[in-house]
């Protein structure tokens, strides 16, 4: 046992001690290992650079902050525009100038100074019972009394819903958003909670008729990656891309940044550039069923079936700014109670 423990410690120390060598870089990610690994393997094949990773969830910025100048983090990868802007606001990123990145990513999907770059898009969609006569939908409709007792949604405090509420604020202002949240709350078939996939399962289980969830889950479930049961759940629903009354579909991003104290900055930039290459963008599209940021990359056929995505024109950083207000509104109306 003792040698085993020493082995564990030794291996960990070795990782720490070798972070400075040229052929490695360190990735802090809140994206799940199974998604990131295929990208990193193909990056290694291309460049010979090994990527050491740690998969984190809550507290990634705090950890990097406390590690300070000694932080081994090179690339920070996360989802949700709020999280990306937060990293910049805390001074944990550094600007990157790269022709490759500027050419691949549309201007509104990256920071002007190069502190963060979006890598993929996902839309907040409507899942509806298959037999429901419904081909278009507006987010505003969710609060209409005709849906009383028929709506399923996850916690109003989950970042995906906070971003949707924040986008609603940018369209309609705080007062109308509050009334909308109250309306949605009144329509809930069950307590707000669980995950996005539960919306599909609960529609199949007869608990609700419609619900709000991200686009890529439908792809994941249909592809069989979530197992045969999820394939069954998703058969009972169809996906509609909703829009705002005077706008498009609310999208959020996954993205990455180079850490402020990155010991391997050169390699870090190489990884970012790789992540917008055609090969990597295809992995985002085909393995995770997201919308690629790069023009000209096909979405997965499973995603193509949803119809054309008309992205809402609201500036992403404006949505990030309304995050706090959105989260507080959800508490004011007792959305999760």
């Amino acid at each position, binding site marked *: 046992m003792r040698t085993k423990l020493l082995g564990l*410690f030794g291996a960990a*120390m070795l990782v720490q001690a070798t972070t400075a060598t040229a052929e490695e870089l360190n990735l802090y990610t809140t994206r799940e290992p199974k998604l990131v690994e295929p990208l990193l393997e193909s990056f290694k094949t291309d460049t010979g650079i090994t990527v050491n990773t740690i998969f984190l969830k809550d507290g990634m910025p705090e950890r990097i902050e406390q590690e300070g100048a*000694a932080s081994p983090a090179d690339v920070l990868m996360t989802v949700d525009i709020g999280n990306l802007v937060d990293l910049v606001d805390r001074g944990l990123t550094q600007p990157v100038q790269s022709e490759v990145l500027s050419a691949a990513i549309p201007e509104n999907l990256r920071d002007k100074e190069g502190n963060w770059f979006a890598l993929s898009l996902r839309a907040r969609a409507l899942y509806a019972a298959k037999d429901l006569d419904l081909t278009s939908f507006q987010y505003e409709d969710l609060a209409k009394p005709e849906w009383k007792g028929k709506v399923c949604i996850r916690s109003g405090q989950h970042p995906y819903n906070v971003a949707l509420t924040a986008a609603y604020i940018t369209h309609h202002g705080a007062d109308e958003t509050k009334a909308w949240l109250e309306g949605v709350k009144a329509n809930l078939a069950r307590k707000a909670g669980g995950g996005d996939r539960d919306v599909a399962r609960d529609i199949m289980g007869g608990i609700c008729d419609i619900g709000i969830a991200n686009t890529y889950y439908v792809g994941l479930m249909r592809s069989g990656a979530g197992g045969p049961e999820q394939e069954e759940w998703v058969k009972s629903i169809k996906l509609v891309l909703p829009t705002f009354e005077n706008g498009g579909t609310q999208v959020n991003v996954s993205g990455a940044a180079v850490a402020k104290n990155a010991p391997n900055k050169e390699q870090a930039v190489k990884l970012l550039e790789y992540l917008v290459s055609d090969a990597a963008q295809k992995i985002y599209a085909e393995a995770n069923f997201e919308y690629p940021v790069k023009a000209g990359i096909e979405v997965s056929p499973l995603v193509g079936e949803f119809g054309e995505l008309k992205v809402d024109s609201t500036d992403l950083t404006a949505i990030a700014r309304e995050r706090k207000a959105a989260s507080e509104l959800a508490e004011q109306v007792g959305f999760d109670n």
Partner: protein
Amino acid sequence: MSLKSGTVWQLTAMLIAALVLLPVAALVGFALQGSIGLWPHLFRNVLANALAQTAVLLAGVGTIVAVLGTITAWLIAGFDFPGRRLLGWALLLPLAVPTYIIAYAYLDILHPVGPVQSLIRDLLGYDSPRDFRLPDIRSMAGCILLLGFVLYPYVYLPVRALFATQAANLLEASRTLGAGPVKVFWRIVLPLARPAIAVGMALALMETLNDIGAAEFLGVRTLTVSVYSTWINRTDLPGAAQIAIVMLLIVISLVLVERRARKGQRYAGNARRLLPLSRVRLHGPSAWAATVFCALPVLLGFAAPAAYLVRQAWRRFVFSGIPARIWVEAGQTAALALIATVIAVGLGLLVSAAPRLHPAASTRIAARISTIGYAVPGTILAIGLLPVITFADRQISGVLGWFTEAAPQLILLGSGAGLIYAYVARFLAISTGGIEAGMERVPISLDHAARSLGQKPSGVFRNIHVPLSWSSMAAAGLLIFVDCVKELPATLLLRPLNVETLATHLYGEAARGTYEDASIAALLIVLIGILPVAFLSRSIRA
């Protein structure tokens, strides 16, 4: 000479308390960095509901764990009935099932499209869940039941250890004097067991209070959920730390109230050899009733979710075999948990013995402080540990810098030592609480006799406290090991690069919704949890 030795015990106890206090102090530091602007919003919109939900949840879970834990322990220790030996062991098994796994498993089993309701519909002749379905498990009642049925071993374990080693003579005497079993239970068993019940309930309730996984699945909004909303969605760490500290103060005062209520009630046995309790043989319906009562929590808290996991894991295994690296992850999980357990039990023993060997306010307060890590949600404690660990790391690198040009950085955080620290700081409450409760039953006259025979405090510790605490140490070690294996939030935040444990693997899959891939990891968590249960139940029985 004895003064000097007393000082050593005093210093040891204070040092151990400091280890736990440091991250909490760091949280206070975070809390002070922010304004109190959050509180008007909390009072207006959040607190009334969150407090009510928290109170209902705690009252419900507390009742279930106390009733199940105490009665099953009493039945196993005091009676003979069919299946007693097997059940005595099996009653510990729910410990191995993390709350987030049981919540997920039951949600699947009991969902309108799950196996149970599908079967009922078939039997009743309904085609669709839209025509007939049972009430949703995602409710306060569901959450209380699920948590109660996995957390009751926190009460069962210390109470049974107490009945096994103590109290035999009192119980025998009351039986001889003609008291019936019901009277014995209320007049002797309950008062005797109260310290152990209190310790176990405190652990189970703190686990409930800090739970975030099961609560999220089941839609219950406790105060802990508010801490997370404040921190994650509004990037207001100071505000979150403020709520966490207020919660900690509430927990501490509740524990103090309980201890005060118990003050002056000391039920130490006398110094004579402790006899094992002779069991009363039950016959007929009462014997079967006892069997059913003890089997029910095992079925609901372990067998059903475990069977579900085995089924899921088997499907996965048939589909793609066992992922090779899962064995590495299992090894890392077990190694981290084992080191943390040994350290936590050792420190818990020292800090519980200190007030006896050097009775003073300092040692008593140190023992209390060493238990507060459990009262803070896991992630929040881990956040408090970050500045502590990285500060120590900078000092270490500074010292190493005298000897070498390229001094390694972040040695503690990068080696996993920081994570072990987190486990110890969090779970020390389990060993201190359990060992203290065990020592309360060791008469102080034994210490005095040893001292008057010329033993130094260290000799009393070695020859009296260590041997007599053996079963409570074993029980505490079991709980801590299993808790470390299950621990998720601190592990996620503080582990080194490239290290995954079974819990983080499981979380990574579950977060992506690929539950089938996760089922093998989940099953392994449960299996690793069973190993010490099997091993240690023997030494507890002794």
